[in-house]
């Protein structure tokens, strides 16, 4: 017998069996009360099982839906959390900026001209007194300290770069180390010295040198150079060779940093000098 025909016969026989069995149960149910109750109870059990299975299946699919909903909600909450964290960070940054702004203001500027070949190198910037620039303002870039504004025209400023033997910047080794003036070595484009270092001070190589913040020109903690070797300066002091972080050959855009309290500080200093 072909397999499909055999399957068909099996299904047909099963169907006939089910119909006849149901008929027999119906006969039995109608012929005796006890059997009627028993069959009703049995059918209720079957129905309950059926409903329970249906509920389980529905619950399973609903669970999947709920999982997706929870995942979406979780994602939204994480997003919100990230937004709040970002806000917190921005608030913190704003607070820092506000604190810094209390002492310093920043003006972006473009280098118009810069010399690199003389002993007294200088820089010309495209911002002048019309832009609020005044002398003794610091010049920095993202790489570190560039120089100091020396004179100001209406539209341009003239400054000395770190590659100028007349310029000295108050520097600190590390975040809280020795403070000493940093000057250019007068020869190399990337080398300078920390001068007047007491001989007993040990300066490790590779330490970053920052602005000390002890002047009204630069805010503290702007990186300037990295320490190299220590050498004798004279009998009483040592000098520490440093490699300047600022690459003057690729410099184009700078930031002029100004201390609004400079006039007040200068006046105070002058007053004390006259009193003495």
């Amino acid at each position: 017998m072909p397999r499909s025909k055999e399957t068909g016969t099996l299904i047909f026989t099963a169907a006939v069996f089910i119909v006849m069995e149901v008929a027999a149960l119906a006969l039995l149910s109608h012929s005796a009360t006890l059997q009627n109750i028993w069959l009703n109870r049995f059918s209720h059990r079957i129905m309950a099982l059926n409903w329970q299975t249906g509920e389980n299946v529905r619950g399973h699919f609903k669970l999947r839906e709920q999982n997706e909903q929870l995942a979406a909600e979780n994602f939204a909450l994480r997003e919100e959390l990230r937004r709040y964290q970002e806000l917190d960070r921005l608030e913190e940054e704003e607070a820092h900026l506000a604190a810094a702004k209390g002492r310093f203001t920043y003006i972006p500027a473009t280098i118009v001209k810069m010399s690199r070949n003389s002993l007294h190198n200088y820089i010309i910037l495209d911002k002048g007194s019309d832009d609020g620039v005044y002398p003794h303002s610091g010049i920095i870039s993202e790489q570190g300290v560039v120089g100091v504004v020396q004179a100001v025209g209406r539209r341009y400023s003239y400054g000395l770069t770190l590659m100028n033997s007349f310029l000295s910047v108050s520097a600190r080794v590390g975040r809280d180390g020795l403070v000493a003036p940093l000057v250019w070595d007068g020869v190399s484009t990337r080398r300078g010295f920390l001068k007047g270092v007491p001989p007993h001070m040990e300066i490790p190589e590779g330490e970053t040198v920052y602005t000390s913040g002890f002047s009204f020109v630069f805010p503290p903690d702007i990186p300037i150079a990295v320490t190299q070797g220590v050498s004798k300066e004279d009998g009483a002091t040592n000098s520490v060779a440093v490699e300047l972080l600022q690459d003057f050959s690729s410099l184009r855009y700078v930031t002029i940093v100004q201390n609004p309290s400079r006039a007040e500080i200068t006046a105070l200093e002058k007053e004390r000098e006259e009193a003495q």
Partner: protein
Amino acid sequence: MTDTAYFLRLALLLVLQVLLLNFFPFSQYLVLSFLPAAILCVPARHGGVFALAVAFVAGFLTDFFADGMLGLTVCALLPVAYARTWILRLIFGADFFDREEDLSLRRNGFWPVLLAVFLATLLFFLIYVQADGAGTRPLWFNLLRTLLSTLVSTFLSLFTVNLFSPERQ
């Protein structure tokens, strides 16, 4: 076996079954039934539907003429008719129906026939006793009744098989 011969023997067996149920109530633990064996002996050339129809009619007539509940024997006998194919194939091989053999103690052997009759009778009484009790009787009672009825009916059913045997024609 011809259908006429089969139905004649079945009618005789039905009369005997009705008489047994009506006038010889042996014990509440024991019910005698030859009908499962009679269903097993439905000629092999007939399929499952034929056996189901025979089971339905035989069960109905037994219930109708016996002093019992209408539908009780029918609902216990129908599963036997449905399982007949499986039981016979399981014990006598898949080609039992292909050979269109009728059940015979001599040809099929005593023990295989006994086993087939036992399975059919057990199935019958499992349903019959349960439906008759309708959940009102304890389990041990039902089990004892099923076991006793199955064992005694199985041995008596061997005569039924012999009655339906093709060698008797």
